[in-house]
C-alpha cells in the first residue's frame, strides 16, 4: 500500500495548473486504479468540505482520505508552504476554522504564520508537513524550529522533500522526512504513483499513523502481534546455547559482522522446519552450479513427440528393416500350361478353374472406408450424449434432433458397410475357389493349371509399402521442432532477460553440427547414416538396387538401437540473451540462481548471504522486490546478510543482530519500526537499529538514503 500526503483537487491559485482540477468521481477512479491506500487532499489555502465528503462517500473502503490544506506561511518576510492534515473525524471543524481564517482573503493573497497555525489547528492534533530545503517554497529553518518547539508533539512534524533519495538522506541524518505527489496533472498520476512511499505496516487510520510516527511501543507491538509469528527454540552453536527467536511470516533478517554465527543460525532454522516436515534448506550462492541446476547437458532431457504430432515410426522402421523382395510367378508356368493341353475329360468339365480371378482391393478399401465411418460416427454420438458442455449449450430437443439425424445416417452407413463387406467377401471366396479348383485339377490330372497372377501386384505392393514407410520416417525427420525457451532470470534492466533455450533437431542425414548432442545412446555417425540410408531407400523404392540399400541399413552398427525416430534426435541446450547464445559470468550466474530460488514456491526461504557476487543495482531492482513479494504472500523469509540493501530496504519484521564483544557473542533482536535491538538475556542491553545497521552493513548509508521510499521510522 502506498501513501500520498500531498495532493490537489482544485485550481485555487491563479498559478495552479488547470490539470490539478479533478471531479470527485474521477478522483476516486484514479486512486482506485493505483496502490495508493492513504491520500491527503491539500489544496492551496482551501478546504472544500462538500467535495471531501463526496469523495469519502464514493471511495468507501478502497482508500483512506484525509482532510488537509497547503498553507502559505510568512515568517521573517520569507514565504513557505506548510501542509496541515487532520483526522477525517475532524473534517467539519477543520473546515470551519480554515474558512474563518481565510474569509477575508483569496487563495492567492492568503498568508498565515506559525503562531496562527498553532493557535488555530493545534487542538486538532494535526500532522504538519513542511516544505523542506529543495522542496520550494520551503519553510525556513528558524520557522521550522519554532513549529517544532511550540507544538505539543514535535514527532508529528514531517519534512516534505522532493523524492525518495532526498527523504532517505534526511532520514539517515535524523530528520523525519516524506514526500508526496504534489500532483500537477491527474492524467499522469497513475504512472507517477509507483514512486510514492510504501507503507510496510498496515495503517488503520490517521491516529494510528500518528502513533507509529511517535514510535509508540504499544501500537507497534499490536501491529506486530497481528502478524502470524512463531517462536523458534534453536541450538545453533556448539556450546548448546539456546536461542529463542520470534519469527514472522514475513522477512526476518540476521545480520552482524563475519564469523558471528549467522550461517549456524540459518542451518538451525532449516533443521527446525525440516524436523516439522516442512521442506527447508539453506540457499547458498554457488555460481558454478548454474549448468547443473538448468541441466544444460540434457541429462534428464526428454521430448514427447506425440505432443508435436510427430510419428515415432516404430512400425515403419521395423517394416523397412524386415523388408525383403517378393517372389513373382515364373513365366515358364505359363509356357508349360499352354504347351501341355489337358486331356482329362473331368478336368475339362470343371469350368470354374478357367474363370479369371477378380480384383479384391477396391472392394476391400470400400468396406474399410464404411467401417471406419460407422466406428467414428458411433463414437461421436456417444460423445455428444455424454458431454456436459453439449448439454449446457443445446436443449434436450436439439440434442435429440442432432442424435436422430446422425443415427439415421449411421443406419444407412451400416447397411452400406454390410453391402461392401459381402461384396468384398464374395470376390474373396470366388478367387479362393478358383485357386483351389486349379490346384486340385493340377494335382489330380498332372496337367499344370493356368497361373492366376503374374505376381506383379504383390511385387508392386511390397515396394509401395517400403516407399510409404520410408516417406513416413522422412516426414518425421523433416519436422521442425520449435525452440523451447525457459525464462532463467533477469540480468538487470540494461542487459535483459536470460533464457535457457533447448533446440531439438532430427538427424535428417545432412546435419554435421558439432554443437548438437545425441539425446539417446546412439552414435551420431550411425544416426546420420541411418537417416541418409532411409532417404536412399525412399529414392530407390522402384529401382533394381532397392534391397542393397535395405541391406546397408541393416548393416549399420547398433542399428537395432534405433527403434524409433526418437533415437535420431539431436539437441542443443544453451543460455541466450536477446536471442543470442550467451555465457553468463559467475556474477550473472549468481543472479539468476537466486532469482530461481525466490521464484520457487515454498513456505520457508532461507538465504545465506544472497548478495554475494551481486551488484547493488541488481539487489535493489530485482532481488529486494522479489523478497518483498514473497513476504506479502505470507511466506517466511530468513536472510543472513551483510548488505544494507537487503537488511534495510526490505524493512524486516524481525532483525537479529549478532556481534562479538568483550563479553563474548551476543544476540540482539528487534525491528526497524521500534528502531530497537534488544538483548533477550538483558532487556537493558539495547541498541539503536538504525545506527547499528548503518555501521555494520555494507552500503548502510546509501541504503538509508533510499529508504525514504518506505515509511517506517525516522
Amino acid at each position, binding site marked *: 500500500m502506498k501513501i500520498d500526503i500531498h495532493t490537489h483537487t482544485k485550481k485555487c491559485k491563479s498559478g495552479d495548473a488547470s490539470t490539478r482540477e479533478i471531479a470527485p468521481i474521477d478522483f476516486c477512479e484514479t486512486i482506485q486504479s493505483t496502490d495508493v491506500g492513504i491520500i491527503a487532499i491539500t489544496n492551496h489555502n482551501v478546504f472544500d468540505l462538500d467535495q471531501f465528503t463526496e469523495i469519502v462517500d464514493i471511495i468507501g473502503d478502497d482508500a483512506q482520505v484525509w482532510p488537509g490544506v497547503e498553507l502559505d506561511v510568512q515568517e521573517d518576510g520569507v514565504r513557505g508552504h506548510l501542509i496541515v492534515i487532520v483526522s477525517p473525524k475532524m473534517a467539519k471543524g477543520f473546515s470551519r476554522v480554515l474558512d474563518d481564517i481565510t474569509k477575508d482573503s483569496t487563495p492567492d493573497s492568503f498568508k498565515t504564520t506559525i503562531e496562527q497555525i498553532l493557535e488555530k489547528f493545534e487542538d486538532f492534533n494535526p500532522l504538519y508537513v513542511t516544505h523542506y530545503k529543495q522542496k520550494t517554497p520551503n519553510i525556513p529553518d528558524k520557522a521550522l524550529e519554532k513549529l517544532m518547539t511550540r507544538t505539543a508533539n514535535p514527532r508529528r512534524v514531517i519534512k516534505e522533500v522532493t523524492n525518495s533519495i532526498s527523504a532517505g538522506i534526511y532520514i539517515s541524518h535524523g530528520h523525519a522526512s516524506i514526500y508526496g505527489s504534489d500532483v500537477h496533472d491527474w492524467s499522469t498520476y497513475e504512472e507517477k504513483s509507483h514512486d510514492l512511499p510504501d507503507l510496510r505496516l498496515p495503517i488503520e487510520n490517521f491516529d494510528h499513523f500518528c502513533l507509529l510516527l511517535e514510535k509508540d511501543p504499544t501500537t507497534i507491538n499490536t501491529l506486530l502481534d497481528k502478524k502470524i509469528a512463531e517462536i523458534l527454540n534453536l541450538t545453533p552453536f556448539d556450546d548448546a546455547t539456546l536461542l529463542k527467536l520470534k519469527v514472522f511470516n514475513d522477512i526476518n533478517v540476521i545480520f552482524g559482522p563475519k564469523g558471528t554465527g549467522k550461517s549456524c543460525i540459518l542451518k538451525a532454522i532449516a533443521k527446525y522446519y525440516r524436523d516439522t516436515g516442512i521442506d527447508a534448506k539453506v540457499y547458498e550462492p554457488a555460481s558454478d552450479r548454474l549448468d547443473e541446476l538448468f541441466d544444460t547437458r540434457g541429462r534428464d532431457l526428454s521430448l514427447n513427440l506425440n505432443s508435436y504430432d510427430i510419428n515415432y515410426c516404430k512400425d515403419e522402421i521395423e517394416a523397412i528393416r524386415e523388408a525383403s*523382395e517378393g*517372389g*513373382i510367378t*515364373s*513365366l*515358364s508356368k*505359363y*509356357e508349360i*500350361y*499352354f*504347351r501341355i493341353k489337358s486331356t482329362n475329360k473331368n478336368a475339362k468339365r470343371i469350368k470354374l478353374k478357367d474363370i*479369371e*480371378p477378380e*480384383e*479384391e*482391393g*477396391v472392394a476391400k*478399401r470400400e468396406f474399410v472406408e464404411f467401417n471406419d465411418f460407422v466406428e467414428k460416427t458411433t463414437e461421436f454420438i456417444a460423445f455428444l450424449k455424454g458431454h456436459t458442455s453439449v448439454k449446457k449449450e443445446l436443449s434436450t430437443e436439439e440434442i435429440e434432433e442432432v442424435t436422430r439425424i446422425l443415427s439415421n445416417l449411421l443406419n444407412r452407413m451400416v447397411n452400406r458397410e454390410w453391402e461392401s463387406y459381402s461384396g468384398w467377401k464374395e470376390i474373396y471366396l470366388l478367387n479362393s475357389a478358383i485357386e483351389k479348383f486349379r490346384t486340385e485339377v493340377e494335382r489330380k490330372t498332372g496337367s499344370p493349371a*493356368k*497361373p*492366376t*497372377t*503374374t505376381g*506383379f*501386384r504383390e*511385387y*508392386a*505392393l511390397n*515396394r*509401395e509399402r517400403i*516407399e*510409404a514407410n520410408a*516417406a513416413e520416417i522422412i516426414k518425421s525427420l523433416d519436422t521442425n521442432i520449435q525452440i523451447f525457451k525457459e525464462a532463467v532470470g533477469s540480468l538487470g534492466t540494461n542487459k535483459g532477460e536470460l533464457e535457457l533455450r533447448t533446440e531439438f533437431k532430427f538427424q535428417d542425414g545432412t546435419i554435421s553440427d558439432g554443437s548438437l548432442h545425441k539425446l539417446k545412446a546412439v552414435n551420431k555417425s550411425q544416426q546420420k547414416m541411418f537417416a541418409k540410408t532411409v532417404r536412399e531407400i525412399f529414392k530407390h523404392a*522402384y*529401382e*533394381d538396387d532397392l534391397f542393397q540399400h535395405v541391406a546397408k541399413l541393416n548393416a549399420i552398427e547398433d542399428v537395432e538401437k534405433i527403434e524409433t525416430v526418437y533415437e535420431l534426435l539431436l539437441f542443443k541446450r544453451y543460455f541466450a540473451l536477446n536471442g543470442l547464445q550467451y555465457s553468463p559470468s559467475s556474477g550473472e550466474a549468481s543472479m539468476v540462481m537466486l532469482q530461481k530460488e525466490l521464484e520457487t514456491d515454498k513456505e520457508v526461504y532461507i538465504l545465506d548471504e544472497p548478495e554475494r557476487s551481486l551488484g547493488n543495482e541488481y539487489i535493489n531492482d530485482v532481488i529486494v522486490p522479489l523478497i518483498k513479494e514473497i513476504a506479502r504472500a505470507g511466506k517466511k523469509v530468513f536472510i543472513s546478510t551483510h548488505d544494507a540493501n537487503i537488511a534495510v530496504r526490505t524493512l524486516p519484521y524481525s532483525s537479529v543482530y549478532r556481534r562479538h564483544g568483550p563479553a563474548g557473542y551476543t544476540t540482539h533482536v528487534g525491528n526497524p519500526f521500534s528502531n530497537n535491538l534488544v538483548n533477550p538475556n538483558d532487556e537493558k542491553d539495547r541498541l539503536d537499529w538504525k545506527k547499528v545497521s548503518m555501521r555494520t552493513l555494507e552500503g548502510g548509508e546509501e541504503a538509508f538514503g533510499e529508504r525514504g521510499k518506505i515509511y517506517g521510522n525516522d
Partner: protein
Amino acid sequence: MESEEKYMETIKATVVELKKKHFIKIETGDEEIKIPISEDKPNEVKSAFNKLIARIKMGEFEIELEGIGQDLFSQVANEYVTQLNREIQEVRGEMKAYGLVNN
C-alpha cells in the same frame, strides 16, 4: 476416377523374337520394357516390373498386345498381359489410396 477412365492411356505391346528368345516388348515412350517369356529370368522380369510401377505413378494405362498369333508364345503373352493389366489397375488403386501417385 471417371476422368482417369476417360483418359486412360493405351500402351502397345508386341511379342518379339531376339536371338531365338521371345519377349513381350512394351512401348512406354521413354523407354522400352522387355519381359522375357521363353526363359525364366526373374531379375529381368522384376526390373521390367519396376519400370511398370514407375509408369503407373505417372498415370493410368492399359497394355494392348498387338499381332497375337496362334503360336505358343503369343498365347503365353496374351494371358500374361491380360493378368498384368488387371494387376496394374489394382496397384494403381492402392497407390492412389496411399497417396503415392504423382498426379
